């Protein structure tokens, strides 16, 4: 299994499950055999950034794995581990896994698939939640860490609001010509701001 794990790391789900070649796979053609051969020696699948996976996509993953492992079990009977933070980016154009399921769309095929995907998510049997922050350790960071964790939960206090406001460019008025700012990369959201700073 060893080398195989190395090979697969860094692959996107679409490429490792050949999700873009699904139509061609229907008639049991070459790509289906490729898929089966590819997954033959794998027992574990780790998926990071799970917050970006939508219900419909999860169903697609499970179906593709079933095809790959030639088993009708959930996720093809593969051992599967999802990692991620649902406060991060939500899926594009799909219902997220932790969103409430909607039942008014079950009249459509798509809506039914969404529900199936949600059920797949609910079938997770082992959950480990990590709580202690490892990156910004140290007492000097504790205030910043607390602020971040409140921001993460969407429970900022008025004091936090003031801290964030005090960091606004319009309040900081940096001297762009000063030594400390001269070589500092500045990341801005729009061209207008960029031009204003570069002027």
């Amino acid at each position: 299994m060893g080398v195989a794990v190395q090979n697969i790391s860094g692959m996107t789900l679409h490429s490792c499950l050949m999700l873009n070649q699904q139509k061609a796979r229907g008639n049991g053609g070459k790509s289906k055999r490729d898929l089966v051969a590819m997954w033959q020696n794998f027992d574990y699948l780790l998926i990071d950034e799970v917050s970006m996976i939508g219900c419909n996509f999860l169903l697609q993953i499970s179906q593709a794995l079933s095809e790959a492992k030639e088993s009708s079990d959930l996720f093809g009977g593969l051992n599967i581990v999802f990692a991620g933070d649902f406060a991060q980016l939500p899926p594009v154009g799909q219902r997220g896994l932790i969103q409430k399921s909607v039942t008014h769309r079950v009249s459509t095929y798509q809506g039914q698939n969404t529900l199936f995907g949600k059920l797949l998510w609910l079938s997770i049997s082992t959950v480990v939640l990590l709580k202690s922050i490892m990156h910004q350790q140290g007492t000097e960071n504790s205030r910043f860490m607390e602020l971040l964790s409140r921001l993460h939960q969407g429970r900022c206090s008025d004091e936090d609001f003031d801290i964030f406001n005090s960091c606004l460019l319009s309040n900081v008025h940096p001297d762009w010509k000063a030594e400390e700012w001269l070589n500092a990369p500045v990341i801005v959201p729009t061209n207008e701001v960029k031009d204003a700073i570069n002027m």
Partner: protein
Amino acid sequence: MTDCAERLSNDKVQHVSDNDTSLEDEWQHAYDQRKQYWKHHTIKDSHHSLSDRTSSPILSQMSNINDGQSLHNAFTKKAGETISIPIVVHDPENIVSKPPKVDINAMIHEFSLNTEQARAFSLIATHSTQNDMEPLCMFLGGAGGTGKSCVISTVQEFFKC
């Protein structure tokens, strides 16, 4: 029912006649008791029924889809509360013919995982060393910077060995 059968075999002199209803009464009583017990049992444990099913060896195949109880439990657990996820301990009888080449505890130490991370890692690592386990279906959650990626790279390293 078995009680009656036993009594019958032990007490051979007892003869049942057509108009003797004592046995019938006894059966009726036993039946009522069983019915009562099941009724009570089902009501009391109705909210456990899904997890009970999971533990039953016969029905474990059917319980692939559950009601998300694990996720619910994990997310509603207050901070500081003890986590009830059973850590699978090494059971010598369950270990595959090829025992793990790597020491899980040594890896936990090497990657300096904290308790939570170690729990996540050993769940995966121990699962992989055991035979006849249900497929692992696991969610590893945590805000940014809690070291999810650290666990993932430890697992990657573990499988490379």
